[in-house]
């Protein structure tokens, strides 16, 4: 059973070819935009690579860049084909090219849709990557003299100031880590010795946060140290104070930022996907309509165009069979080679 049969008189064919040519140029620009968006996203992800534990999320911008480049090629050929479509002499040379062309184009178009779905689905992976990365960043904050970690302090400080956040989940993460380097602690003083003895690992823990957690919107000068001690500061209540330091955690801030970015990009890529799909569908109709004209005397007759000659399942088997036989044949030949030397020797 033919899928989506449509009648195409001559004038309609001409109009289809012209519309398709215009559409394919728009789709080329859209493909370039997709590539640019992919590059943008990758740059933004790389900027904060120090607070990300793994690069799994980079698959989204990588896919977008590949799809963008592929769609440039697909649409270039689409415009060339539809230019030749109305010329009965030039159209037949595309005959053998079209079947693999459609296969490859459908693959990349579906990949585009997959990229959009992935950008929503990978939120969990991004969150866990940020959780681990930020935990390490906070732990190594004090190691400004260790090679490879000496810029952690600067990165975390700038991150907290730019995204207006403090700590991993919230500011209390700083209470559990020693973020003051031993080089700046006076080990002969009683206070330092008490604090170090008060916990198992011998760390200098304070109920204080770095200056980068301070909120400029607070009406009073920033209180960074002895945050939980109400009597240490005049007219201060730890439980009700909201504007002193940033209350939001950096993981939440970064996840929101990146999900917002990916949502915007996803919406754009979705519209590019629709455009690309319409280009391919129109090209298919044009191809089938023009194939019916081939060999005929009068090129201005009415023809029928269709999407798929057989049903969806049969067409898929048609495309997958060569691939499967190629793979299976390879396996069979290998097995054959292994078994034949055996009987020959004995």
């Amino acid at each position, binding site marked *: 059973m033919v899928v989506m049969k449509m009648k195409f008189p001559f004038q309609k064919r001409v109009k289809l070819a012209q519309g398709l040519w215009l559409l394919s140029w728009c789709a080329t620009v859209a493909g370039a935009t997709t590539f640019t968006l992919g590059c943008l996203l990758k740059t933004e992800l790389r900027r904060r690579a120090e607070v990300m534990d793994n690069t799994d999320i980079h698959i989204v911008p990588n896919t977008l860049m590949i799809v963008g480049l592929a769609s440039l090629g697909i649409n270039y050929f689409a415009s060339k084909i539809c230019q030749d479509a109305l010329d009965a002499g030039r159209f037949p040379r595309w005959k053998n090219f079209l079947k693999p062309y459609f296969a490859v184009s459908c693959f990349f178009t579906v990949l585009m849709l997959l990229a959009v779905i992935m950008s929503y689905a990978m939120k969990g992976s991004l969150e866990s990557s940020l959780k681990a990365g930020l935990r390490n960043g906070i732990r190594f904050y004090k190691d400004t003299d260790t090679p490879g970690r000496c810029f952690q302090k*600067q990165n975390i400080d700038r991150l907290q100031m730019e995204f207006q956040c403090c700590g991993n989940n919230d500011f209390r993460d700083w209470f559990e880590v020693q*973020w003051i*380097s031993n080089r700046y*602690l006076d080990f002969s003083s009683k206070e330092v010795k008490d604090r170090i003895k008060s916990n198992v690992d011998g760390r200098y823990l304070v109920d204080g946060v770095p*200056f980068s957690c301070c909120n400029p919107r607070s*009406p*009073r000068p920033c209180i960074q140290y002895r945050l939980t001690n109400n009597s240490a*500061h*005049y007219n201060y209540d730890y439980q009700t104070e909201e504007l002193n330091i940033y209350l939001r955690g950096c993981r939440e801030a970064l996840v929101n930022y990146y999900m917002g970015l990916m949502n915007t990009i996803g919406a754009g890529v979705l519209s590019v996907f629709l455009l690309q799909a319409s280009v391919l569908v129109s090209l298919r109709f044009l191809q089938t309509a023009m194939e019916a004209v081939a060999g005929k005397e009068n090129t201005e007759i009415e023809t029928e165009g269709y999407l798929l000659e057989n049903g969806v399942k049969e067409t898929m088997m048609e495309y997958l069979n060569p691939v499967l036989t190629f793979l299976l044949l390879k396996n069979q030949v290998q097995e054959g080679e292994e078994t034949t030397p055996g009987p020959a020797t004995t």
Partner: protein
Amino acid sequence: MALMVVKFDLKKRVKLAQTVWFMYWFAVLAGILVLSLGLFFKIELRKRSELMDNNESHFLPNLLIAMGLIACATNAFGGKVCYDSLDPTKFGKWKPMLKTFLVLCVGFNALLVITALLCFVMRIPLQFTLAEGLKNGMKYYKDTDTPGRCYMKRTLDLMQIEFRCCGNDNYRDWFEIQWVSNRYLDFSAKEVKDRIGSNVDGQYLMDGVPFSCCNPSSPRPCIQYQMTNNSAHYSYDHYTEELNVWRRGCRDALLSYYGGIMNTIGALVLLVTMLEVSVTVGLQYVDTSLSTLANPEDMESESEGFLLEKTVKETFTDIMAKMKVMGKGAKVEEGGEEGVASVS
């Protein structure tokens, strides 16, 4: 002898008109560029007008906006004239006003040069405005409960973080003012009473700076309070410590920021001026080549185009003579009236 004579046949005239028309379109874009630069500069000034005591001069951005608009208008008109110059009937209606238009263009170009010079010169008054505004801003840092000044703290903190600076000249400016509000001082504590008693104005002064002065590149946690007291902090030397707080003053930082903007705008305005001068010269050639046709009826005859009808010196003396005649004409009228008055 005319200045810079060039011979024109029909083909050359057509090419000249087309080139000048094309250049006029670029000049319209350049006018739009000048307009947008003026708008950008105005917005940047307004963003930080709090730090300049709200009396910064908007003369330069307003001038840039006006020049941009005039440039767009004159270049669009010039482009239209060039486009019509290839058709004698259409050109005929523009012919009478061309001479005045060209004189106006020359005047406009001179104004553009003056604007460019102003861009480089206005840095100096800006320096004084900034110094005054920042000093007052720091004074009002603590007044987060006074209407009209409650956002000064936030503005100053965000500015010090963004421009990586501290204080007016340097961080020691914070030692000379009280930047902690009285609402957060415990007046029953001995330390507070000592500090207030120690100076004439009864202000709570300390050798500390706000957190926004802290430098994230410092290897140690920020030391904001008791900065001049080496013994208050372990392994700390006030004189050799360089990375702890930002060492640059905010006046220098803001001045170099705005100075950079003004220098760039000045350079771009100079480039636009050069473009404007070249299109004015082009239009003059188009005009003169069409008015000196060897055979006025035949459009394909040869003609000459020139920059000035006489040499520079003669043109100058001509202009002076014309102005004298105009002045004398006024005097003759006055004399006539007096004569009439004396007669009666």
